[in-house]
């Protein structure tokens, strides 16, 4: 287990690392497929089970992004295995560890949690049954879009003309005016694209979550970041719609998945 120097880990008890809750009451050993080769098995309660491994009650931890990546990928690999095996799973986020407490063992605490949260977990299982999550990120190149705005916006094309006919000092002021106008128009255009694309994507999915946008690379800017829930192998229509958006000049689309439904099982 990776341990950061600054983290005090005074807990010495036993823990159970939780990967996911699966749609099966099966009690089974899945083998040493877990994080750092841990033996993964299920703790069943009625017709559901928690997929876990045994570990100390300390979080997995590292300041090295490479190590974090491999830990997180190991987590995902187990969730994937469970997903393949049982068809429907509720994934947990990385580093969810149940510990023993007040004389009750960690394993017992996992079962108690399944029991006390059973109705809620079953509702979530029904919600995501047979479905998968897909990531959709839409980027644009502001410079390319700005060029097309110069042609289509009367205010901006007029300012462009005025700059050409002015002396240097005055032209500078007009340039600033032009930049402000462009910024406004770009923002309005981004809003409009968001609404338009959202509606187009909405038609092909069961649920949609709007995520925070992130910095794009190079000349691009992310204008939309979505999580979409839809039947696992029915992503064709969504793919076609995204292809249409991808082919618009200045726009590009990233389409990832299928993922277990991480974004649709939270509260």
């Amino acid at each position, binding site marked *: 287990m990776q341990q950061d120097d600054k983290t005090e880990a005074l807990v010495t008890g036993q823990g159970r690392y939780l990967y996911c809750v699966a749609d099966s009451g099966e009690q089974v050993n899945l083998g040493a497929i877990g994080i750092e080769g841990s033996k993964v098995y299920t703790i069943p309660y009625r017709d559901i089970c928690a997929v876990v491994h045994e570990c100390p009650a300390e979080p997995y931890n590292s*300041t090295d992004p490479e190590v974090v990546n491999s830990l997180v990928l190991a987590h*995902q690999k187990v969730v994937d295995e469970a997903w393949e095996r049982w068809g429907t799973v509720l*994934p947990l986020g990385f580093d969810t560890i149940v*510990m023993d407490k007040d004389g009750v063992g*960690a394993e017992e605490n996992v079962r108690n949690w399944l029991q006390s949260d059973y109705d809620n*977990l079953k509702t979530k299982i029904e919600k995501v049954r047979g479905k998968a999550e897909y990531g959709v990120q839409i980027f644009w190149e502001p410079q390319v879009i700005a060029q097309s705005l110069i042609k289509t916006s009367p205010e901006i094309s007029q300012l462009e003309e005025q700059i050409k006919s002015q002396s240097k000092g005055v032209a500078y002021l007009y340039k600033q005016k032009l930049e402000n106008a462009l910024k406004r128009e770009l923002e309005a255009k981004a809003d409009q694209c968001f609404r338009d694309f959202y509606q187009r994507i909405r038609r092909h999915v069961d649920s949609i979550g709007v995520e925070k946008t992130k910095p794009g690379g190079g000349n691009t800017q992310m204008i939309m970041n979505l999580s979409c829930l839809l039947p696992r192998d029915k992503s064709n229509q969504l*793919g076609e719609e995204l292809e249409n958006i991808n082919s618009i000049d200045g726009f590009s689309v990233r389409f*990832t998945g299928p993922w277990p439904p*991480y*974004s649709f099982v939270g509260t």
Partner: protein
Amino acid sequence: MEPTRDTHYTLVDLLDRVLDKGIVVYADIIVSVAGIPLIGVNLRAALAGMETMLSYGVMQEWDQKVRAKTTGIGKQRELPLPVCLS
């Protein structure tokens, strides 16, 4: 256009999900991940975990100490890390 699972940007997209999403277990039987400097995202997870624990009264003593410190001295960069109680 086909969805993909195996390129660099796909990894980033996946990390966001695994670190930030999934079922949340609201109970004081969960080991806290506070203080883990993963990759930015984790700070949010740590904070969320702390808030959850505070709302269950698990770390009240720690919380009061920290509040006293921070209101007293202003910006305090090095806070004692909360330790999960078993």
